């Protein structure tokens, strides 16, 4: 490693004009700032959820609420099983997205198309899982303003649990949906050779940042609602 003096002069040069101090294109910097603002929105939701939970004596047990999966019988007791499938779907779709970005850097159109298709399938699979779960919970009587689940200690619960659950997973699901739409647009643009003509696949990288962010938020939502 170089000594401190040379390091600082080299770093200072980034701000002397003539080149981007961040050394990435404008759109990517703006995507990062958008994601940062989105992180604050999700953070506000999750912190509100945490604050309300801390200010209440009882809270429903997630292992009681989320214990079913599709095609399971009435009395199924399988906590965490379905949500772990959802989590893995999103992680794998994130991996295929990285592979698409990497293929884009290599100007490998075929690789981009293949991995974008996998990513889109993963996104749709996740949305389908969420649709099933919402539908299932709604059938059990849970919705905004309705909470059929009692607290873990056997006392009466408020509707805070369902309100926060549907609002936050709904907001996240909306992000997944937008991500799938963006990815489909990227796939069409790849197939119509738009990126080939531009000579770079930077748009795929920006869509990738958004998609990873969606995965990142799920890490927090999954932990806060299903595990803690």
């Amino acid at each position, binding site marked *: *490693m*170089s000594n401190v003096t040379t*390091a600082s002069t*080299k*770093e200072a*040069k*980034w701000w002397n004009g003539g080149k981007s*101090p*961040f*050394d*990435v294109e404008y759109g990517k910097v703006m995507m*990062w700032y958008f994601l*940062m603002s989105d*992180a604050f929105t999700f*953070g506000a939701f999750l*912190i*509100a959820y*945490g*604050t309300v*939970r*801390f*200010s*209440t*004596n*009882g809270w429903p047990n997630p292992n009681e609420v989320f214990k079913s999966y599709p095609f399971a019988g*009435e*009395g199924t007791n399988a*906590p*965490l099983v379905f949500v*772990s499938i959802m989590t*893995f779907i999103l*992680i794998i779709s*994130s*991996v295929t*997205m*990285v*592979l698409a970005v*990497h293929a884009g850097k290599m100007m490998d159109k075929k690789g981009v198309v293949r991995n974008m298709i996998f990513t889109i399938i993963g996104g749709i699979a996740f949305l389908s899982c969420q649709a099933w779960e919402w539908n299932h919970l709604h*059938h*059990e*009587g849970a919705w905004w303003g*309705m*909470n*059929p689940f*009692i607290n873990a200690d*056997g*006392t*009466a*619960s*408020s*509707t805070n649990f369902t309100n926060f659950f549907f609002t936050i997973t709904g907001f996240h699901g909306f992000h997944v949906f937008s991500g799938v739409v963006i990815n489909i647009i990227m796939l069409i643009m790849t197939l119509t050779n738009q990126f080939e003509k531009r000579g770079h696949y930077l748009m795929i990288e920006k869509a990738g940042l958004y998609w*990873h*962010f969606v*995965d*990142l938020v799920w*890490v*927090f939502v999954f*932990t806060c609602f299903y*595990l*803690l």
Partner: protein
Amino acid sequence: MSNHDTHEHGDPIAEIKKVTIILSVLTIVELILGFWMIGVTSEGGRLAIKGTIVILMLAKAFYIVAYFMHLKHELKNLIMTIVVPLALFIWFITAFLSDGNSFRNLRNTYDPHFKAQSTIKVEAKEGHHGEEGTKEAAPAKAAETEKK
């Protein structure tokens, strides 16, 4: 230091594979802890497991942002402009959660109705499916009438 970003660091595919495995292992460990916690009843034990899960969650977040979102390989300028504002979350979480906690303690001390509400046991409904489940928060209402 300055020959940054445009150069690939090692084999990117190998890095993707490595991070995928790390994320999967962390998720599996989280799930194991989650299953384990179902049987743990002591307050301290549950808190310790929850703390571990939160640490694993942060590790997962780090790997996604650093490698999948490529932030680790960006210039320090860009890293700082993203990460430093997010440090506000440390204060948000500390302040709001302790505020919630304090509100609960105050209500438990000074609001006998609130305290009483949270000690009345209600019946768990048999089989959540069907018409009775669609009624809104029946146990909460039952508890309220009991109070009157």
